[in-house]
């Protein structure tokens, strides 16, 4: 556990010592800020219309702002995750520092966990930007905080799964761009496979089950369902397991 935290802290240090973390934070902040502003604008317009017509359809912050925004984050995340994970192993392989890391008295699993945890924490920092925006909703309105919390949990689980896959892909190459592009492709693929749900065949059901975004929907609505949580946890497990195996095979092949 001590080694995991040493490696995790070092990785976070590297993220924040280089411009990567700041660029990601600013980009994410701006993009999410735009979505928030847009969504809020719609909401305000709709509620004014409602007042003028005098129709009593209830306006709900959770349903009409928080839920769609969280779903947006689940998709925006797909674009940011490759940029977070691409350097994790690829850079160490290119500069040769991996040799120092692997010949230190540390287990492979500890290295993998440390790096993955650091990437998850950086993603968590991105989510903090959304929290700043949501804080305004709590100041001027009274949304329910419980569905929001479950939404965040869902986002972290979804990101954890994709980050684990990205970490694995980063072990496959010395080239960060290749690692990033491959991870990006996988992320997008794991999103769009969910679009086949109009089909009824078994293959379509399997494909749509694999979609990382579909599994997020219940979380966005504030529903904590074990089958979705299990999907993400299993994906995290699998990704990290493959990363550890890949590190091992790296030595057999190199």
């Amino acid at each position, binding site marked *: 556990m001590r080694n995991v935290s*040493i490696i995790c802290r070092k990785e976070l240090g590297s993220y924040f*010592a280089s411009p990567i973390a700041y660029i990601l934070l600013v980009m994410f902040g701006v993009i999410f800020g735009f979505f928030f502003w847009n969504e809020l604008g719609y909401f305000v317009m709709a509620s004014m219309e409602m007042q003028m017509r005098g129709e009593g359809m209830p306006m709900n912050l959770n349903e009409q702002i928080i839920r769609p925004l969280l779903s947006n984050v689940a998709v925006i995340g797909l674009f940011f995750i490759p940029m977070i994970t691409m350097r994790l192993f690829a850079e160490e392989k290119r500069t*040769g520092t991996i040799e*120092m890391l*692997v*010949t*230190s*008295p540390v*287990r492979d699993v500890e290295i993998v966990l440390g790096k993955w945890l650091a990437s998850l924490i950086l993603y968590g920092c991105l989510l903090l930007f959304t929290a700043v925006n949501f804080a305004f909703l709590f100041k001027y309105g009274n949304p329910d905080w419980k569905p929001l919390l479950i939404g965040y949990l869902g986002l972290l689980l979804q990101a954890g799964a994709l980050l684990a896959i990205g970490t694995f892909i980063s072990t496959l190459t010395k080239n960060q761009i290749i690692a990033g592009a491959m991870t990006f492709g996988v992320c997008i693929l794991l999103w769009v496979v969910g679009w086949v749900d109009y089909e009824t065949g078994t293959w379509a059901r399997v494909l749509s089950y694999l979609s990382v975004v579909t599994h997020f929907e219940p979380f966005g609505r504030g529903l904590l369902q074990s089958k979705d949580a299990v999907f993400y946890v299993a994906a995290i497990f699998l990704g990290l397991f493959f990363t550890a195996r890949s590190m091992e095979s790296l030595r*057999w092949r190199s």
Partner: protein
Amino acid sequence: MHPRTPTDGRHYGSLAAASNTMIIVSDLTKRYARTTAVDHISFAVEKGQIVGFLGPNGAGKTTTMRMLTCFLPPSAGTATVAGFDVVEQPLEVKRRIGYLPETPPIYPEMATAEYLKFVGKLKGLSGAELSKQIDYVCERCAITDVKQKLLGKLSKGYRQRVGLAQAIIHNPDVLILDEPTAGLDPKQINETRDLIKSLAGDHTIILSTHILPEVEQTCEQVIIINKGKLVVTDSVRNLQARARGVESVLVEVAGRNGGVEPTSVQQKLEQVSGVSRVVCTSQVDSRAVFEVESQKGGLVRGDLARAVVESGWDLNELKAASMSLEEIFLQLTGNEATENAAASGGQA
């Protein structure tokens, strides 16, 4: 060429139990899909020694070192460091090894002190001991003045020394240095060599190089490998004696009509000036082979040939019996080494 090492790896097994042998390598082999990078290498290193690992580029030096540091698993054979097997107990081995790869493993975005702190922690140090060790290695490797600088901004010489500091931070029993002087300027090379020599008392050191004078200056023991095979392992002093002192020549003599009398040939050869010893190694029918030892640098071979022919025998063959370190090395490395040796000879 007569490799002086026993080819039987088991020989070292018994040696380990008895004396303070730090590293035992027996029949170590590394095969890749098409090539064999390291082919049944066996050697042993005593505690506190500096061993030079000599060979041309691509001889298998780095691969062997990577197997010793548990970075690569061997395909066959075993290696133990301080009594721990590199395959069975890698964590124990890693705790006792400091390793400087060919390119110093530094993170450009980190400052020197920050980097050493990270490596020290990884190697199990903490608290007061960690800061004490950081100060110690900074002083030892003369990097105190760049402690707060970013590693990416350091010169090659400083990076190398930070790499060395990183390797010794946990005070390991064994230091494995892959070409520690490669790419440095002459002054830095001398400083690095002195540093390595000063570390020898506390640590057992294996350093790889393709520069001959480096081995002569820094090391006590030398292991020469080529194309993955062990060529020779001996003490530098012995090899130097062989290289500087005696030259050994094989002479094959045949009688003109019928037989040849070995004793009379031997007497004749002994009379040649400069010859210190003559031994008849074999005699088949009318031919006899003699090993003639002489001072190096004399014109013995010509005199030997004349003595044989003038006595009415035939001279079938005349060749060098064993090669000097330099000759072995030059044969291994070809022209490239001649240039390197000349260049570094000038620097030294």
